[in-house]
């Protein structure tokens, strides 16, 4: 005993206190971490001491290290609790501080402090009470909040103002953790709103501001109190908070807005404090935007801020302006000069804000002008802001499927120009848009190909890795739409130029494949030009042709042959549905034969009008160039490049043998149709000219699962087989038949190649496209429905969806027909293919958090229960209300009953959402127009259904409405008192 005591005395005398520790830390020679770990060792020893002073000192040092040097102190949690329970204020204070610094909701020792906190909360020493309150404000678990609610309740009306203020602040935390506390404490909290003490008022208004920001509807009944404060208070802190509350309440109750808008304007005019003035401005522009005169006044004040030298006020002015623009675009136009001038401000934040404003000014009429100004400006600005500008131009212009773009020719050339800006790092986005526009907008393709050509032909661009993605898009575009190219030979040279070796393999593969398309196009045009084709080839291909090949031709022909009647829905079905019977295919193919001849006539006419004619020499030359460029690539290590190069070379191999003779033969040949080369070329060009359109993201889901296909089959066996083959890694699908051996292939073999070749090409491009353009696809709306059971092929709903898609296409073709007839002098806005967007937005509406809902339910109950209990409230809620009241007095058990209730009500909800959704299609609409009245109605159905899904709430709500429609109608009126009377 004596030994222990003396050692504790020694420790007391020679223990390092916090000051020593900090001094030592600043002067240490052994390195900070070494010093700290030594100090930590000391603390570990000292903290076990029986002497409270030593212990608290150790904890003090430890909390310093934890808070500023981020050393873990959770191991000392128990010691912290010991120090907290010390009877000395000095120690207690250290203990509490350590606790509020280091404890969190999962700290196990929290269970031990409930009694300590209770003791301190009821202490006669007001500073001890304040310590406990601070601690509780920092760490309150559900259990703590529940157990200490009575103490908080008492403190909310204590005469010691200093303690009461803190208790008010803590109430916020307690409510958040334990919503049932509202039933106990809320009334006292509201009473404090009438307190004459400004500090109390400030605290309580702060609490309501925070509460109202989560769920303003519940606090509407308190509006008269807030109104009084707004009129009477002279305290800026309080006024700012009250304004925030009104900004939340006003949109819910138009009568309220009418009453408060004038006092707010009065404050705005009179006050000298910028913070209050700005808060008034913000409140007016965000929540009172329909009051013209108030908004005008606010804009005047914003202007004052904008021209101020203080960068803070300028920034806030821009912020305010950007809120006004949502409703009143004139405000920005009035301040245009200031905004544009701010683009060159020294402060990046101000620049960014003004850029946002400038982009908000963009409309159909001025997009050209503004983009020009901004692109020029971006050339001069620093790389970061330059990309910021480019990014915002890209996102603004592509908003809502290029809503504001009228002149797409201009836009694609702008994209080309942007890619050449030295700092440009927006390659991905530009790439996406180039391809996307190519697919969606038919009319722009000639210009698009021109832009792509300009990009491809510039060897300097190949050296910039940021541009590679753009170049890949350019290559793809020029290959896909090569028929619009003015000079395919030039394009070919650009695609095969030596510097393409700088590209990554995946992009190089795109280049080679585009070269393939260009080559096929040239050959095909050449043959057509020679007039070899007297009739269409599908007739000749009949023996080997499959349904698939036929199908491929059909959409193609319907798209290319613009003079044809719009495609029927049936055709579109085929595009989606592999299960279509062969019969319908053949039927349709008959139809198409007639059209084919027309199409060829057109294409050849189109060809002859082109400037460059295809001569025999030029074709041979072209083939030689391709061979020369691609030959080295047959040894490439990248499987994709290798594959593509070989495809092209084998194709050349196949046609080369017969090419000279058929080229020489000219029109005299009768048997030209028998020449294999023609058929090959014809097939290839057919395959390539199929158009890839944008596809709905849920299109895949609409494809019914074929019988016998097990998607979830275990494919482990396959791995062992593949392991032996050792396929080189590649993310794209490629098929490995060696073409080198295919020289003298039979027709059927050949055909199979033709067939699969474009399909891999198409799928890989399609998947690539889908990966990049996920944004433009429909999110799978009715996912849960679709996941469970795929609709059968001929489901009517499914057809409806499809019809919408096809309708778009119909419109498109009809439109392009019109514009083809009229030369576009007036430049009407070209049609942009859009997919049926459905009502995605309304379904994915955010649901409020469960806790908040509980809380607001409780608040509603207290407010409406105590102030205005409508007599005609439905028996159901009245009953539960009574029950709750009874329980409240006991105040022991938490909301177990409540939880049970919820559990019950949630079960049926889970069971039949589908049926309900299909039956009550109106309830989405019901939800959308959530008028104030509706909210009031909701308010009346109190806390019971806090946790329920909102959809459920509406369904039940509806049911009840139907059941006792009379009751609700009556109850509506008493529930909405005129708050300000």
């Amino acid at each position: 005993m004596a030994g222990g005591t003396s050692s504790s005395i020694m420790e007391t005398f020679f223990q390092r206190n916090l000051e020593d520790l900090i001094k030592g830390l600043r002067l240490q020679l052994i390195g900070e971490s070494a010093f700290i770990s030594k100090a930590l060792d000391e603390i570990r020893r000292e903290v076990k001491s029986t002497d409270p002073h030593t212990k608290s000192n150790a904890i003090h040092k430890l909390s310093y290290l934890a808070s500023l040097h981020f050393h873990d102190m959770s191991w000392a949690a128990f010691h912290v609790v010991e120090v907290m329970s010390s009877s000395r204020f000095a120690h207690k204070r250290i203990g509490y501080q350590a606790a509020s610094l280091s404890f969190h909701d999962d700290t196990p020792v929290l269970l031990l402090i409930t009694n300590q906190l209770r003791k301190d909360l009821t202490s006669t020493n007001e500073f001890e009470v304040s310590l406990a309150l601070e601690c509780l404000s920092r760490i309150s678990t559900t259990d703590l909040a529940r157990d200490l609610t009575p103490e908080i309740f008492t403190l909310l009306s204590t005469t010691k103002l200093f303690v009461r203020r803190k208790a008010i602040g803590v109430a916020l935390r307690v409510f958040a953790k334990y919503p049932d506390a509202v039933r106990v404490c809320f009334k006292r909290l509201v009473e404090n709103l009438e307190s004459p003490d400004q500090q109390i008022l400030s605290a309580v208004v702060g609490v309501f501001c925070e509460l109202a920001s989560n769920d303003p509807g519940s606090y509407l009944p308190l509006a008269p109190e807030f109104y009084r404060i707004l009129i009477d208070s002279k305290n800026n802190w309080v006024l700012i908070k009250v304004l925030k509350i009104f900004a939340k309440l006003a949109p819910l109750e138009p009568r309220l807005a009418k009453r408060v808008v004038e006092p707010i304007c009065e404050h705005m005019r009179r006050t000298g404090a910028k913070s209050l003035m700005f808060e008034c401005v913000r409140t007016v522009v965000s929540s009172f935007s329909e009051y013209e005169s108030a908004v005008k006044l606010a804009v005047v004040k914003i202007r004052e801020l904008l021209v101020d030298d203080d960068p803070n006020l300028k920034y806030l002015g821009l912020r305010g302006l950007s809120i006004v623009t949502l409703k009143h675009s004139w405000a920005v136009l009035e301040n245009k000069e200031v905004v544009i001038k701010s683009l060159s401000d020294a402060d990046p934040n101000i620049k960014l804000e003004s850029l946002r404003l400038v982009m908000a000014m963009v409309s159909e009429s001025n997009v050209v002008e503004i983009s020009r100004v901004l692109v020029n400006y971006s050339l001069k600005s620093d790389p970061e802001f330059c990309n910021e500008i480019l990014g915002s131009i890209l996102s603004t212009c592509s908003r809502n499927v290029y809503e504001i773009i009228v002149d797409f020719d201009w836009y694609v050339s702008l994209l080309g120009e942007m890619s050449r800006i030295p700092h440009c790092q927006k390659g991905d986005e530009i790439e996406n848009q180039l391809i996307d526009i190519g697919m969606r907008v038919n009319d722009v393709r000639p210009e698009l190909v021109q832009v792509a050509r300009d990009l491809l032909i510039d060897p300097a661009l190949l050296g910039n890795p940021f541009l590679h993605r753009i170049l890949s898009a350019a290559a793809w575009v020029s290959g896909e739409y090569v028929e619009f190219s003015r000079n395919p030979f030039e394009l070919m040279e650009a695609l095969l130029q030596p510097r393409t070796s700088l590209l990554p393999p995946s992009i190089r593969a795109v280049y080679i494949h585009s070269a393939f398309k260009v080559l096929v196009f040239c050959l095909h045009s050449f043959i057509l030009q020679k007039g070899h084709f007297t009739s269409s080839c599908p007739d000749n291909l009949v023996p080997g042709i499959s349904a698939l090949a036929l199908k491929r031709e059909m959409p193609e022909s319907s798209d290319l042959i613009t003079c044809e009647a719009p495609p029927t829905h049936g055709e579109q079905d085929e595009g989606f549905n592999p299960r279509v019977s062969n019969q319908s295919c053949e039927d349709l193919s008959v139809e198409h034969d007639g059209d084919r001849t027309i199409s060829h006539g057109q294409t050849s006419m189109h060809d002859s009008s082109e400037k460059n004619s295809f001569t025999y020499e030029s074709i041979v030359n072209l083939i030689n160039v391709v061979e020369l460029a691609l030959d080295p690539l047959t040894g490439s290590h990248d499987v994709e490049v290798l594959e593509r190069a070989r495809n092209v070379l084998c194709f050349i191999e196949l046609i080369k043998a017969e090419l000279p003779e058929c080229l020489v033969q000219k029109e005299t040949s009768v048997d030209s149709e028998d020449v294999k080369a023609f058929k090959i070329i014809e097939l290839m060009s057919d395959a390539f000219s199929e158009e890839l359109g944008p596809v709905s993201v849920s299109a895949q889901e609409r494809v019914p699962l074929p019988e016998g296909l097990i998607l979830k089959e275990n494919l482990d066996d396959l791995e062992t087989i593949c392991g032996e083959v050792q396929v080189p890694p590649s993310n794209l699908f490629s098929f490995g038949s060696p073409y080198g051996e295919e020289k003298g292939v039979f027709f059927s073999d050949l055909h199979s190649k033709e067939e699969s070749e474009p399909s891999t090409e198409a799928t890989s491009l399609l998947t690539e496209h889908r990966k990049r353009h996920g944004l433009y696809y429909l999110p799978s709306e009715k996912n849960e429905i679709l996941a469970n059971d795929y609709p059968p092929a001929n489901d009517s709903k499914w057809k409806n969806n499809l019809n919408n898609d096809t309708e778009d296409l119909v419109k498109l073709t009809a439109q392009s027909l019109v514009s083809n007839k009229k030369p576009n002098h007036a430049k009407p806005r070209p049609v942009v293919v859009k997919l049926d967007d459905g009502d995605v937005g309304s379904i994915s509406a955010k649901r409020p958090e469960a806790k908040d809902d509980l809380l607001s339910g409780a608040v509603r109950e207290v407010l409406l229960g105590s102030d205005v209990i409508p007599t005609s409230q439905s028996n159901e809620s009245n009953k539960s209300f009574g029950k709750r009241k009874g329980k409240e007095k006991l105040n022991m058990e938490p909301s177990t009953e409540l939880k049970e209730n919820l559990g019950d009500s949630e079960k049926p909800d889970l069971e039949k959402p589908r049926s309900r959704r299909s039956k009550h299609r109106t309830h989405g609409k019901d939800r959308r127009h959530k008028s104030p009245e509706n909210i009031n109605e909701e308010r009346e159905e109190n806390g019971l259904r806090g946790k329920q899904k909102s959809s459920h709430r509406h369904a039940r709500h509806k049911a009840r409405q139907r059941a006792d429609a009379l009751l609700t109608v009556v109850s509506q009126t008493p529930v909405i008192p005129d708050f300000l009377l």
Partner: protein
Amino acid sequence: MIHFVLLISRQGKVRLTKWYSPYTQKERTKVLRELSGVILTRGPKLCNFVEWRGYKVVYKRYASLYFCMCIDQEDNELEVLEIIHHYVEILDRYFGSVCELDLIFNFHKAYYILDELLIAGELQEPSKKTVARLISAQDQLVEAAKEQRSSISNIIAQATK
């Protein structure tokens, strides 16, 4: 509400951190690293607001110290600037022309003062005088205990216990 309060020196040393929203230790270090990178590099004549992860950080530099407070998007920036100024004035009054060293050696006192000013991320005591009075009252309590503790008779009593 205010989500956290940070005091960072110009060299990037942390002088005070107070978290009103739950952040894990890992997140705290990350926040500090990110914000000191953003704030310390900003020039002197720029505005005092930084947008950061959907929040706003209001900062102000006093001598070699940056006082930063993180608030919600719709909170009033100017009000928070005033709170910061308020805090600095109280510190100044308490320490008598406060400097960084005062805060280094009295880190706990800086916390106590902040606790009187803010609770649960809300301003609760706008009066400078009241805060000063409350803090000194609590200090007296502690001092009284200390004196009693360090008196010789007390030590002897403890040793012979």
